C-alpha cells in the first residue's frame, strides 16, 4: 500500500530490449566505420581505381557505356559471383559432412590472416597516405603483424575475451565491406539484390546449401563452422528468464550468406556453452498468453544470445557505403531501412524459431529506400532547405 516501497523496484523499461541493442550496436558501428572510410578515402574521384575481383570477372564497367549495357554487364557479374558462392557453399557443406573440421578451422585462420594483413594493411597505407601520418615501414610492419596475429587467435580460439573477438569480427567486416564498395556502381546494386535472393533460396529451399548445413549441425549438435557474431548473452536474476536463455540459444541461428572471397569457416566458440546458466529448469508451463508472445515475437521478451553472420555485416555496410558515395541523406535513409529490416527479421526469427536469412528483408528495404531517397527525397529537401523553408 505504501507507495515508497515500490520506488526502489526497477521498472521493466530498464532492461527490455537489451539483446536487440546488443546486435544493433555492432551493426551500426560497422556501417558507421565503412561510411567514414568511404568519406575519408574517396574524396578525390580522380584516384578511383577499378577493383578487379571475381565480381567483375564478366564485365568491367566503364563510364562510356549505355545504361542498358551497364545493366546487362551488372547482371552477368552478379550471376558469376552468385554461382561462385553457391559452388563454394556446397564445397563447405561437403567438407562439413565429411567432418574435415580441422581443415576448415585452419582455412578460417588463414583467411582471417589474409584479410587482416592484406586488406587491413592496404587500408592503413591509404589512411597514412591521406593524413600524412609519419611512420616508418619497420614499425608499420611490426604493428600490422601483431594486429593480424592477435586477430587470427581471436577468431580461432574460443577462450578469448569476448570483447576483443567481437571487435576483430567487426574489423574484418569493415575491411571486406570497404573493398566491396569499390566495385562499379551498377554491379554493386544488382549484386546486392542477387545475393539477397540467393540468401533467401539457400536458407529456405530444401536443397539450399545453408539449410543443409544448419540441419546437419543441429542433428549432430555441433556448431556451424562460420564467422558468426554473437551478441553478449544477457544474464538475468530471475531464474525463469534464465532458463529461457538456453531455449532461445538453440533456436536463434540467424544464418545467411557466409561464403565470401575471404571470409572463412570457423568453429563456434565453446565459451558460450561454458557460460550457460547452471539452473536448467525446464519450464513446461510456458503458456503463450498473447502479450507475452508478442513481446517475444518482437525479440524483447526472452533473453538470449542473438547470432548474426559476418556476411550480413559486410553486405549491410556495402549498401550503406555505396549510399555514402552519393549523399549523406541516402546514407541515413538506408541505415534506417536496414535497421528496420533487421528488426523485422528478428521478429520473424522469434515467431518461426528456425534459421532465417538476414539479408533479404534489409537489403530489399535498403535498396528501395535508396532509390526513393535519391529520386524523390533529395529534390524535395533541397528545394525546401535552399529557401530556408522547413517544417
Amino acid at each position: 500500500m505504501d507507495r515508497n516501497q515500490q520506488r526502489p523496484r526497477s521498472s521493466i523499461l530498464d532492461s527490455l530490449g537489451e539483446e536487440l541493442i546488443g546486435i544493433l550496436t555492432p551493426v551500426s558501428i560497422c556501417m558507421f566505420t565503412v561510411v567514414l572510410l568511404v568519406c575519408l578515402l574517396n574524396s578525390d574521384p580522380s584516384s578511383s581505381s577499378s577493383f578487379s575481383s571475381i565480381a567483375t570477372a564478366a564485365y568491367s564497367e566503364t563510364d562510356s557505356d549505355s545504361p542498358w549495357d551497364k545493366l546487362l554487364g551488372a547482371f552477368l557479374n552478379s550471376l558469376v559471383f552468385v554461382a561462385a558462392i553457391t559452388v563454394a557453399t556446397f564445397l563447405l557443406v561437403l567438407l562439413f559432412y565429411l567432418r574435415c573440421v580441422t581443415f576448415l578451422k585452419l582455412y578460417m585462420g588463414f583467411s582471417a590472416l589474409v584479410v587482416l594483413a592484406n586488406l587491413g594493411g592496404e587500408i592503413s597505407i591509404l589512411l597514412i597516405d591521406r593524413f600524412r601520418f609519419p611512420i616508418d615501414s619497420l614499425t608499420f610492419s611490426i604493428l600490422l603483424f601483431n594486429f593480424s596475429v592477435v586477430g587470427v587467435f581471436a577468431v580461432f580460439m574460443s577462450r578469448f575475451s569476448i570483447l576483443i573477438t567481437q571487435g576483430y569480427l567487426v574489423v574484418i567486416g569493415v575491411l571486406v565491406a570497404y573493398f566491396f564498395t569499390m566495385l562499379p556502381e551498377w554491379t554493386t546494386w544488382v549484386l546486392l539484390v542477387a545475393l539477397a535472393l540467393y540468401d533467401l533460396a539457400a536458407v529456405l529451399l530444401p536443397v539450399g546449401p545453408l539449410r543443409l548445413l544448419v540441419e546437419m549441425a543441429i542433428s549432430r549438435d555441433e556448431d556451424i563452422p562460420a564467422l558468426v557474431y554473437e551478441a553478449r548473452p544477457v544474464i538475468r536474476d530471475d531464474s525463469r528468464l534464465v532458463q529461457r536463455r538456453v531455449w532461445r540459444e538453440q533456436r536463434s541461428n540467424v544464418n545467411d550468406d557466409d561464403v565470401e572471397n575471404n571470409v572463412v569457416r570457423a568453429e563456434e566458440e565453446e565459451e558460450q556453452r561454458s557460460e550457460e546458466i547452471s539452473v536448467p529448469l525446464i519450464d513446461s508451463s510456458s503458456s503463450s498468453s498473447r502479450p507475452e508472445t508478442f513481446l517475444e515475437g518482437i525479440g524483447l521478451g526472452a533473453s538470449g544470445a542473438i547470432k548474426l553472420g559476418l556476411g550480413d555485416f559486410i553486405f549491410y555496410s556495402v549498401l550503406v557505403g555505396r549510399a555514402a558515395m552519393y549523399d549523406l541523406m541516402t546514407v541515413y535513409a538506408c541505415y534506417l531501412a536496414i535497421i528496420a529490416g533487421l528488426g523485422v527479421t528478428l521478429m520473424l526469427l522469434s515467431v518461426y524459431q528456425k534459421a532465417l536469412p538476414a539479408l533479404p528483408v534489409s537489403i530489399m528495404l535498403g535498396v528501395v529506400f535508396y532509390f526513393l531517397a535519391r529520386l524523390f527525397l533529395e529534390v524535395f529537401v533541397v528545394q525546401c532547405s535552399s529557401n530556408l523553408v522547413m517544417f
Partner: protein
Amino acid sequence: MHRSFEIIGKVMTVAAGIGYALLALGPSLSLFVSVISRKPFLILTLLSSTLVWLVSLIVLSGLWRPFLPLKANVWWPYTLLVLSSVCFQEALRFLFWKLYMRLEDVLDSFADRISRPRLFLTDKLQIALAGGLGHGVAHAVFFCLSLLTPAFAIIALAFVTIHTFSMVIAFEGYAKGNKVDQVIVPVIHLSAGMLTLVNFASEGCVIGVPLLYLVASLTLLHCGKMVWQRLIESRNQSGPTLR
C-alpha cells in the same frame, strides 16, 4: 562526391562541419547520452520514430514530386507545401500515439506476468521524449546535415527542440483528453513551419529566426509546466499505481 556541397559552392573544413553539426544536434546528443542510452527500449523507440518521420517525408516528397522544382522567388506554393506537410505529419503523430497505446498495454501485461511494477509515469514521459527526439533528430539530419551551413544549423536546433517537446505534450494531451494540449501541438508545428516562410523576404531571416526561437522556448515552457503538474499530481495521488 557530396552533390549537395556543390550547391553551396564553398569548401568545408572538417572542424567547421563538426561545429555546425554539433550546433544543431548538441543538445539532442546530450539528451541521448544522459537519458536515452541508459534504457535500451528508449533507443528502439528513437529509431522507430526516426523511421516514421523518414517515411512521412518520403511520402510527402513522392506526392509533391510532379510539382517540383518550384519557380524561384515565388513563395505561395511553399505555403501549400508546409500546410500539407504539417497536416500529414500531425495525422501521423496521432497514429503513432495509437500504436504506442497498444504497446503500453502489452508492456503492462508483460510486467504483470513477470511480477514487476507497471510502467511508471516517468517511463511514459521518457518514451514520449524518445519519440520526440527521434523526430527532431530525423529533421535535423535531413534538413541540415546534408547542407551544413550556420543558418541551417541554427534553424534545425529550434526545430529539434520543438519536435522533441511537442511529442511529450501531444502524448500527454491525447492520453488525458486535454483539448488544449491536443490543439496546441499542431498549432506550434504549423506556426513554426510558417515562420520559416518569412525567410523568403530579403533579410527576412533576421525576423524569422528569433520568432522561431520564441516558439521553441514557448514549447519548452509549456512542456515543462505540464510535466511538473503531472508529477506533482501523481505524487499527491494516494493510489499505488501511477497513471
